[in-house]
């Protein structure tokens, strides 16, 4: 009885994948913030960050028009031709076909869609799988799924993994991103454990992702670091390179650069590209572009020089 309790399941999993010290992680990531990135290295970092953005709109009020304008922004974030397009747009499944219509079939910008009853995941598996298939059929290149946090917290790890495997199958060739929703797992130990559960099911090049952006706490340097270290350990152990996507809460270029420094110093050069690292964000894009222009011209420009900038000045 004892050995079958959820608590014992957690104990076994933690023992297997190792624990995380909260204070130690916070100390480690505080060092990234003290890095001082200047000149050419700053420009490289900013442009690389632009190329890693999954430009996202996930609102009840999304319309085909809004999605069309998001796609245009993703293709051409600024008049400056040296600024790359973003990695992808990220939309609800019902918007995938509209995005595909705008982007066409021959495009550098991929279409990601949050399927599986995002953000709660609280729908029958059959429904969730149907949603994934529909999104892929409509032209989604990437599927962002949520894990079953209820099952995870109840210690039913096999159920969590089975569901990921089922979604993976429904994805076909589409890339899968597994959202752990870290704010609902609460501890760094649980985030590390959940990362391993997901990584053991998914394929090379698939992602683990911090959060939906729909809860109070999203991507932080701390949970990003825990997941990067899990990816590193999994890679050194199996040779399978899993990609990473922090999402939500990254609003400034400075933050984005700090996250990239974490990637550089934890996983190394092979992860410093948009097949292995993404930012799930929207407002960060204009700040990145603004900083790029500032590096080039030496002056900050008014927000109205940047398309889609909604903030006042």
């Amino acid at each position, binding site marked *: 009885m004892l050995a079958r309790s959820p608590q014992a399941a957690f104990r076994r999993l933690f023992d297997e994948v*190792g*624990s*995380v*010290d909260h*204070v*130690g*992680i916070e*100390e*480690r990531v505080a060092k990234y913030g*003290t*890095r*001082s*990135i*200047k*000149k*050419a*290295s*700053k420009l*490289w*970092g900013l442009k*690389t960050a632009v190329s890693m953005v999954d430009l996202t709109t996930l609102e009840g009020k999304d319309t085909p028009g809004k999605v069309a304008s998001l796609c245009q922004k993703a293709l051409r974030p600024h008049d400056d031709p040296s600024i790359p397009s973003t990695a992808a747009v990220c939309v609800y499944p019902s918007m995938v076909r509209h995005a595909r219509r705008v982007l066409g079939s021959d495009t550098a910008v991929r279409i990601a869609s949050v399927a599986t009853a995002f953000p709660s995941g609280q729908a029958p598996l059959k429904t969730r799988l149907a949603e994934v298939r529909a999104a892929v059929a409509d032209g989604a290149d990437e599927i962002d799924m949520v894990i079953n946090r209820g099952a995870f917290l109840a210690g039913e790890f096999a159920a969590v993994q089975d569901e990921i495997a089922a979604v993976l199958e429904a994805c076909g060739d589409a890339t899968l991103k597994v959202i752990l929703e870290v704010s609902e797992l609460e501890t760094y130990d649980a985030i590390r454990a959940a990362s391993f559960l997901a990584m053991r099911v998914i394929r090379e090049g698939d992602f683990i992702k911090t959060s939906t952006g729909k809860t109070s706490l999203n991507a932080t340097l701390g949970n990003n670091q825990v997941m990067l*270290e899990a990816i*590193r350990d999994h*890679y*050194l152990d*199996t*040779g399978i*390179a899993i990609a990473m996507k922090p999402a939500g809460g990254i609003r400034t270029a400075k933050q984005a650069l700090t996250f*990239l420094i974490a990637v*550089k*110093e934890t*996983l*190394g*050069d*092979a992860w*410093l590209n948009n097949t292995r690292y993404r930012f799930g964000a929207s407002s960060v894009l204009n700040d990145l572009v603004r900083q790029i222009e500032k590096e080039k011209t030496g002056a900050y420009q008014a927000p109205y020089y940047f398309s889609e900038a909604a903030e006042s000045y």
Partner: protein
Amino acid sequence: MSTLVAEKKKPVARGGRPAPELIFGDLWEFDPAPESADPKLKARYDLFIDGKFVAPKSGKYFDTINPANEQKLAEIALASAADVDAAYAAAQRAFDTTWGKMPGRERAKYLYRIARLLQDRAREFAVAETLDGGKPVKESRDFDVPMAAAHFFYHAGWADKLDYVAPGRRVAPLGVVGQVIPWNFPLLMCAWKLAPALAMGNCVVLKPAETTSITALKLAEIFQDAGLPPGVVNFVTGAGEVGAAVMNHPTPAKVAFTGSTEVGKLIMRSLAGSDKKMTMELGGKAANIVFDDAPLDQAVEGIVNGIFFNQGHVCCAGSRLLVQESVADQVIAKLKNRIRVLRVGDPMDKNTDVGAINSREQLDRIRQLVDVGVREGGEMFQSACRLPTKGFYFRPTIFSGVSMSHRIAREEIFGPVLSILTFRTVDEAIEKANNTAYGLSAGVWTDKGARILKLSTELKAGVVWANTYNKFDPTSPFGGYKESGFGREGGRQGLLDYVKLS
């Protein structure tokens, strides 16, 4: 310089695929990010005696250089015995006429003022500290200067609470004290020594290390700005002979020394039979103990912080890693990957993690002991980083396969060199950790709270850190067991070494 030894054990390739490795290359090289604040250095620094900068009686000066590029920074006065006499006479006069009679709450005002002035000029001091000593500006900015200010603030708070230092007993200052400090934390050691002495009402003659006198003499400028009465603090500069003159002088009621065990023994020998009080903060060869249930990535971070902080020029550096056999390979592999991303180079660059070795002499000593380590059969790994061509630098270095009888496991290297030993049981870990002439500090890494408590009582070390390393605070007493010295600095315990109880 010792040659780089390739890792002997390469990970085994599986299924025909090459073993996975991380690439820490130059895809995203950081541009130089030099700290640009003006250190406001003078071309020549005189002695600071009786509140004034005065030329040494001998008229002699020596050069202080920047260890990062071997360029001369300034000339420092060379004190003679006559200057030391003058300094002690000024200190005695200040004690008799002003400082010793002043109510504690008045002394506190000066200390608060010193702390605030130091904060005001923090960047300037950080840059000066880095230029003169070679430590990364990141550390002088985020650790040395703020911690020095914190020591003045903390002890300012005690100055008007002498009645609570030892409840039920009367507390009085000792009088004049002589202090000699090392080159690894020039400003911080200065604050660490001066603040408790001043707060308790003593006057001081202090000798900074000869390679790092500048920030002490800049602190003297702050004393002038703060209006500290003349003679309360006097700085005499020079090398060992000056230190001996400060320690052996008949005036001081107490001497305090921080430095090597070798010199500490000399001082104790020369003062034997005198009625001087003494505190000694000497060398260390701390054990950083990692158990198999520890959070390994954070332990690795603590190991790095323990041995590469300030280029390993730390008396409490975690220079012996004791790691449980079952996780040794894993810890060493993680450690190597962590060391690969340490940035070694120009200390003035804000991204530098490991700066310059303090002096050529110290660099030679590190090289010599590392050569011994290689000859004794330790398996060496060094990071492959590029080093500047001028200046004193040493790559972060780890030795695995070290045993207790190796010299690199017993002698203090005082550089970025880690010796890794393994153990099997808790008792073996304690035995190995305590099997040293030193006993300044230790680290314990485990998820088990009870084990931490057990080790903190059984380890013969003045400080035991649990799941962290190299954490300091003015409220926390610091000091050693055995040949790491005696007496405590910081906290209430530290005050007791600067007062007469009756």
